[in-house]
């Protein structure tokens, strides 16, 4: 079901955790709230879940105001970062909990729990207790428990961050597949940009309680609207607009005169001999070989009126022919340069 967040604000003492946040989420969409810790993403999720009351603004589900609906009546499924399976109950009882709250019959409950167990591939673990399962398994049970009552929205609060890297990647796939199969509107909070980029249909980037940008992963990556988003998602060189880097007015920048430009490292190409006079010339400062990619730090040749400017470029391969102190020319396609301010 579509979910609307309208002008939500929330303060804790003097700290503004949420500052006039609005967002519309379509049915079956997976949206990620992405941002550094303390940006308000978890608070927003808790407001949506009904665990926190907003100071202002409303949350609407299918055009119905949820302001006076308590968490337990919202019919949202929630998965917490720290698993929070009830330790005194078996896996089976954990998954059945939400159904018992809704007074399902014994027969229907059994059918649904078994269905959920097979959905997360844990049929043989039903009678174990949470502490007997691995972290990844526990989080799959938490997912099954949240999905069992057929919630209208699924809320995931950093569901993968307590897991180790390999399990995290597996579960990422599993959640995405499950979400698409069930076509359930899903909100996931994360501080991991890779997680957001690979899983989300849309990403909402937040900072200090405010929305910095909302868009598809590719929009967020390729067309960041401000320096914060540009630097938070992937790497980006942020430079003043008047140092001679060519740019086109792509992305519909509407300000008066552009002040700041952003260039992704992979879009700065290095060519050996300095060619013509107009090209940018820099000196190699540092070379960082990462295996398949080589990261090169280059300081531009000084131009009057500017402090020395350092750019990072990424080139494919091992960069064997690069040397520190060597002069190179930088080639940048104007189409890939982003006007940020």
């Amino acid at each position: 079901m579509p979910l609307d967040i309208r002008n939500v604000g929330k303060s804790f003492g003097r700290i503004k955790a949420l500052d006039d946040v609005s967002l519309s989420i379509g049915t079956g969409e997976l949206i990620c709230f992405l941002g550094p810790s303390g940006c308000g993403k978890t608070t927003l999720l808790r407001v949506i879940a009904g665990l926190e009351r907003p100071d202002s603004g409303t949350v609407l589900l299918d055009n119905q105001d949820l302001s006076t609906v308590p968490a337990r009546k919202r019919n949202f499924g929630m998965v917490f970062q720290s698993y929070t399976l009830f330790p005194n109950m078996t896996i089976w009882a954990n998954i059945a909990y939400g159904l018992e709250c809704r007074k399902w019959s014994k027969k229907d409950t059994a059918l649904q729990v078994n269905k959920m167990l097979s959905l997360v591939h844990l049929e043989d673990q039903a009678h174990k207790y949470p502490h007997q399962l691995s972290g990844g398994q526990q989080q799959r049970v938490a997912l099954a428990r949240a999905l069992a009552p057929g919630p209208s929205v699924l809320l995931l609060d950093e569901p993968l961050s307590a897991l180790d890297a390999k399990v995290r990647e597996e579960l990422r796939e599993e959640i995405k597949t499950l979400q698409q199969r069930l076509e359930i509107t899903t909100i996931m909070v994360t501080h991991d940009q890779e997680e957001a980029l690979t899983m989300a249909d849309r990403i909402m980037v937040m900072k200090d309680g405010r929305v910095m940008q909302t868009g598809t992963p590719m929009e967020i990556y390729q067309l960041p609207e401000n320096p914060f988003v540009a630097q938070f998602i992937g790497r980006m060189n942020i430079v003043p607009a008047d140092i001679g880097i060519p740019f086109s007015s792509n992305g519909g920048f509407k300000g008066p005169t552009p002040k700041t430009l952003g260039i992704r490292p992979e879009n700065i190409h290095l060519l050996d001999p300095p060619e013509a006079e107009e090209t940018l010339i820099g000196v190699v400062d540092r070379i960082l070989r990462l295996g398949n990619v080589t990261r090169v730090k280059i300081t531009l040749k000084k131009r009057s009126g500017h402090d020395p400017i350092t750019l990072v470029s990424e080139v494919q391969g091992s960069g064997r022919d690069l040397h520190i102190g060597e002069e190179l020319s930088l080639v940048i396609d104007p189409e890939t340069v982003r006007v940020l301010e």
Partner: protein
Amino acid sequence: MSISPTSQNRLAQSFIQRTAPMDQEALLKIVVACMVALPLIVFVLYPLIHILGKSIQTPEGIGLGNYYSVLGNRRFLGLVYNSFEVTLVTTALAVVLAYVFAYGIQRTKVPVKNLFRLIALIPLFAPSLVQAQGLLLLLGRNGLVNRTLATDFSIYGYWGIVISSVLYVFPYAFLIFSASLAMADNRLYESSRILGAGPWRTFLTVTLPSTRFATMASIFVVFTLVITDFGNPMVIGGDYNVLATEVYNQVIGQANFELGTVIGMVLLLPVALAVAAEKMFNRNNQIQLADHAQPMAIMPHKLRDVLFTVYTVSVSLCILAVVGIVIFASFTHLWPYRMNFSLRHYAFDVQNGIQPLWNSMYVGLMASGIGVVAAGLGAYVTERFKTFLDSPLYFLCLVPAAVPGMVLGLGYILAFNNPSNPVHAIYGSLLLIAICNVYYYHAQGFLIASTSMKQISSNYDEASATLGGTFARTIRKVTLPMMWPTLLGVAVFFFMRSMVTLSAVIFLITPSSQVAAVSVLLLEDRGAVNQAAAFSVCIMGMVVASLIIARLILNYFGYRNISLIR
């Protein structure tokens, strides 16, 4: 100033949003919070107000006359001096002795540590005046030493109070230091060694600073216990009077409630300050171990280990001797004249017979039942409800810690011995004694429950709520199953304290509602030392039995790491 219609609208809207009930549960939370607050107001604040009221009541009307006459009185100033002299000396001795003992247990290779730890805690299981009782049997005029060595010295008075008080408070200080010394990051000690510091320097630069808050806490706790203790000075003080015994003498001896309340108020002040200081230290300075702290590895060190073993054995022997002689005396025919074995004192051939023991048990059981509900609910409400009542309620739950037991008991007489007060219906009953014990020990019980509640993530409640669980279901299915071992611990705590306490209940007993600890005092006062000893032994037996039962239950369900003794 004019308000445009739209902004008026918005104002109204935001008002409705803020005041509209989220649902009945929000209301229920307020109701439950008030249910927790109400008995605290009735059974703690209301009696205190009565004490204050009585203390400013003079024949000439309301005024500070009572205070002037007390404070201008030489004898009274002498009592204040005595109280502080005893308390400060005891505090200094007990804190140092307990620190070294705890250090021996936690940081050296003393053998059979668990046995020594248990011995250190024995005074907690006995009525609070057992130390004075035992000390008299050992060193009194008719004591073992005078009798066997044909000497004639007396332990009555200042030193008697100090020694028995040190033994009385020893386990409290030991528990605090033991917990603090158990937390140690081995890496700090290794760094210190690698940097070339010797053991003494390491102790001064690493160990001592890491236990300074425990030291402050135990100083305040011990100070409070000693200055308000009344059983030991009563029994062994002789002519040496202190404030606590004076309250009793004024009220019971001379029925002078005004003076009793004034002295009670004077006693309240240093106690309230000490408790406030202790809470302040505790709040700001919870020492926490770093995430990657390494457990302490104790290196053997022959001289150190031998010295500490000698020390722990000596202290343990002192504790055992005092309690042991009471047990021994209870089995003699007539101490100290006919020392042959006899069970006749266990016939309880005294006034009221065995009834006080039954009364104690009923009071203990009621107190543990009421205490678990009161402290558990208080902790639940303040930790989980997130209403505007949280911090006033938290404060209210801790107030009893600052009230000396005698002051609370005196307040109960003044407040409830009045037919127009509804509580008067249970005045003189065991139930009111149980309630008095619950609210006297409320702060400690509340803190035990609240600490354990903090360790259980509130996400469990939230998970239940998002799954559709009601408040009641969440408590029944999620919270209680996770909390019950702690709550059992809280129940044992209230039972134990109710069995051994004297000061809070001394003003509330009637001949039919006498409890065993008071029997010990009265019998001791009459010189019936054998019978008094027998009562003490029975109290200890019941406390130890309750601990064993609770431990067996916890072990059966696999909760081995819940500590029962606090």
